[in-house]
């Protein structure tokens, strides 16, 4: 079994990599890049050469290309200590045309061309656009190197960057000794309450391990998952964080900052990350913090995107199984009688009518009954969950009814049932002990998928009821060309599917000992 599982997981990982590669081909190679600028107000304002440079700059942010302006190359040289600031300043100003470059500029432009040319970059030099004797608006001369990121490198970079481990050499300039400290008294709680924590200096996160009152109570920052950085949906934030960060309005509490300053604030000191020079540039930070770990996330009262989707989804799943299965069993027992006919009518309705139609119907009926039809994070009214859950569970109940009935009827015609009947067992006993057990095996196979699928959220339902869930993330990302989010969300969904299939198989083989995935076990 272990060997089989290992093989399955390996295959699963392989297919995940392939899925990501396909998605990357779809969005980076097949889509027209110019579409990115369709809704960009800044792009329209740009003119001539500046527009070109702006385009490549944006494309780099969206992850299409590697783009290196000549100026950045020189700055890197200064950083590496190869040239000094004076040379940089002298070499940086390129002429309006190539032959108008000064000697020193020529030298470094040649170096620039050679360095990036050998790495497969295309060197682009745009001569100044003149209107009369003056440079036209946006017509300044440009020199940069760019290249499309090849697929293999893109996939490799993505998967190697998926998990990052924080260590004490993570940030460059740090004051004080690089170390990890363990304390029994978390300073974020004032330093007297018993609450273990591990703090770091030199790490990216200040708190590497801490305890608080939010599920799952013990949190760590040693390893973090990077599914892909968002560009338009939630700028600069990782997809996984976007899906998991609390939403809603701020929850303020008395916060004692490291400097001893106390104030009503929503800042969650446990989320502090390093931001170089932030204490010197901001008086607010200077008052509150004693080091550069100033970048904190605020506490909010709502759930995360996945949280809302999961709460609605899991109740829907439980409801569907609790209602759908018994009705399916009833339909099979009363085959061709009234109960079966009513049930079949319902199944046909749910399957054939577009989901949008009955979701709207439920919304309209619910609205007439006075139930809240839109979701509001500020409201404490639990009734607002009612209509989304009903809208999701009606089709799920129909599907379960249909399959449970089908499996039960298939089992009813098999020989062992006839044998049991001839052996004198009562119908009730045959149904409960023989048919039900066998018919529920394929149903059980679907349970992990249903539970994990609850996290994905529902696109239409969440849109109709304005639920701030995870269901719409992918469609929003597609319409906003947020490539990082598309890749991240796809990987997340695909992982859930692959995991739930494996879990389903395991669960099935636990429930039914006849099922074995290895030939040896038989």
């Amino acid at each position, binding site marked *: 079994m272990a060997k089989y599982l290992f093989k399955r997981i390996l295959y699963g990982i392989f297919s995940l990599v392939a899925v990501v590669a396909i998605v990357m081909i779809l969005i980076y190679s097949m889509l027209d890049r110019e579409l990115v600028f369709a809704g960009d107000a800044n792009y329209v304002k740009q003119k001539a050469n500046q527009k070109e440079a702006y385009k490549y700059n944006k494309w780099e942010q969206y992850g299409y290309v590697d783009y290196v302006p000549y100026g950045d190359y020189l700055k890197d040289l200064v950083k590496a200590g190869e040239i000094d600031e004076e040379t940089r300043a002298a070499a940086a100003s390129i002429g309006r045309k190539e032959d108008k470059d000064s000697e020193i500029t020529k030298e470094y432009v040649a170096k620039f061309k050679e360095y990036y040319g050998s790495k497969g970059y295309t060197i682009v030099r745009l001569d100044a656009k003149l209107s009369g004797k003056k440079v036209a608006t946006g017509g300044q001369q440009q020199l940069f190197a760019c290249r499309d990121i090849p697929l293999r490198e893109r996939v490799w970079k993505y998967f190697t960057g998926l998990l990052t481990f924080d260590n004490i050499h993570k940030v460059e300039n740090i004051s004080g000794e690089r170390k990890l400290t363990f304390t029994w008294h978390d300073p974020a709680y004032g330093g007297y309450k018993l609450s273990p924590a591990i703090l770091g200096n030199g790490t990216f996160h200040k708190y590497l391990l801490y305890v608080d009152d939010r599920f799952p109570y013990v949190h760590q920052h040693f390893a973090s998952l990077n599914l892909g950085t968002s560009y338009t949906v939630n700028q600069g934030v990782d997809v996984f964080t976007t899906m998991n960060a609390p939403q809603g309005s701020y929850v303020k509490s008395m916060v004692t900052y490291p400097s001893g300053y106390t104030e009503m604030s929503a800042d969650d000191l446990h989320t502090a990350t390093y931001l170089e020079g932030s204490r010197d540039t901001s008086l607010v930070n200077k008052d509150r913090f004693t080091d550069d770990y100033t970048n904190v996330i605020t506490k909010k009262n709502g759930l995360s995107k996945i949280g809302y989707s999961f709460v609605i989804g899991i109740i829907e799943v439980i409801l569907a199984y609790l209602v759908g299965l018994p009705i399916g069993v009833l339909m099979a027992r009363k085959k061709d009688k009234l109960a079966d006919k009513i049930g079949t009518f319902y199944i046909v309705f749910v399957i054939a009518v577009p989901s*949008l139609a009955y979701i709207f119907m439920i919304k309209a009926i619910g609205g007439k009954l006075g139930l809240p039809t839109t979701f509001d994070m500020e409201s404490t009214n639990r009734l607002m969950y009612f209509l989304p859950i009903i809208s999701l569970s009606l089709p799920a109940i129909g599907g379960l009814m249909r399959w449970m009935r089908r499996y039960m009827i298939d089992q009813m015609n098999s020989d062992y049932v006839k044998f049991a009947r001839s052996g004198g067992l009562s119908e009730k006993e045959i149904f409960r002990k023989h048919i039900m057990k066998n018919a529920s095996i394929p149903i059980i196979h679907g349970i992990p998928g249903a539970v994990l699928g609850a996290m994905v959220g529902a696109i239409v339902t969440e849109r109709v009821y304005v639920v701030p869930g995870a269901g719409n993330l992918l469609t929003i990302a597609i319409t906003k060309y947020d490539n990082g989010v598309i890749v991240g969300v796809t990987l997340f969904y695909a992982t859930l599917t692959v995991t739930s299939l494996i879990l389903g198989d395991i669960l099935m083989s636990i429930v039914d000992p006849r099922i074995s995935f290895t030939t040896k076990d038989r």
Partner: protein
Amino acid sequence: MAKEIQKQTIDRKKNDDVFAGYTEEELFARVPLDSLSAEKITAPRYSYWHSVFRVFFRKRLNIVILSLLAVVVLMAYVYPALVHYDPFVNIMNSTAKHLGPKAAMEKFGYNIHNILGTGGSGESTFDAIWYGSRISISLAFISALINMVVGVLLGAVWGFSKRVDMIMTQVYSIIANVPSILVIAVLIMLVGASFWSMVFAFTITGWLFIAYFIRTQVVIIRDREYNLASKCLGTSTVKIAFRNILPFMTSIIVTLAASEIPGYISFEVFMAYIGMGLSDKSLGVIISEAQSAMVTPGWEFEFWSPVAITAIISVVLYVAGQNLGDASDPRTHM
């Protein structure tokens, strides 16, 4: 039962009367052995499709469903050809927009165009719905047809060949995990949101799911005893596929096709709702454009009528297909 026995005895009595007066020799004569006709098996004449329709029309509900289907098809395909419909005829007339049936009738006269009122740009909702239905039904039908043909053929090969099965199962587990919304969105951005590009987007990966379904069915019956027996007797694989397996699959294929077509109508509505719909005014586009009308008092008709028509079309197609699928299962032909 008792009646039958009684009838049989009457029959025998009749026969006795007929045979009266013959001698034993006259009644029983030796017949020369004819080995050729001895091989012949006589059975009642059985025509597969004849039986399918006999079973199908035995249910009275099916006749109702079929006539409803005929009405829908007639309205979707013949009505738009006969009636001239211009969605922008009243675009400049602000008093013609969002009218209920009653107001529209009073304004434009009592005719069939106005029985459902007018929409957001003053167009007749009734006409818009049938123009939209034509697009939606065509889209669903063509997509389903392409998917079914490709899916069934490749699914059969996939199920038969173990080598193909190994590769294709891996391919399936990859492709099935790429969100279809993403594939469709990318394709639409690439080739535009016209009718045929939508068909292309729906079918490029759609066949794979049908092929997988067919593959599973083929795998289930591939190794049944009667196929093994056929193989032992030297029947070619092609003949086994067409004579042994395909008849078994007919009802499955019909049932699948029956859920495919309404499935694509729903899917088109869904895609339009999330903003990736057709550029033509299909049912889905009409519904998503009239969304705001749902909650506006007096405008309900322009939202609920396309929704209702979509529901009717889907249910009719689905039920007709399911029942045809049931009827095409030879086990129901008793």
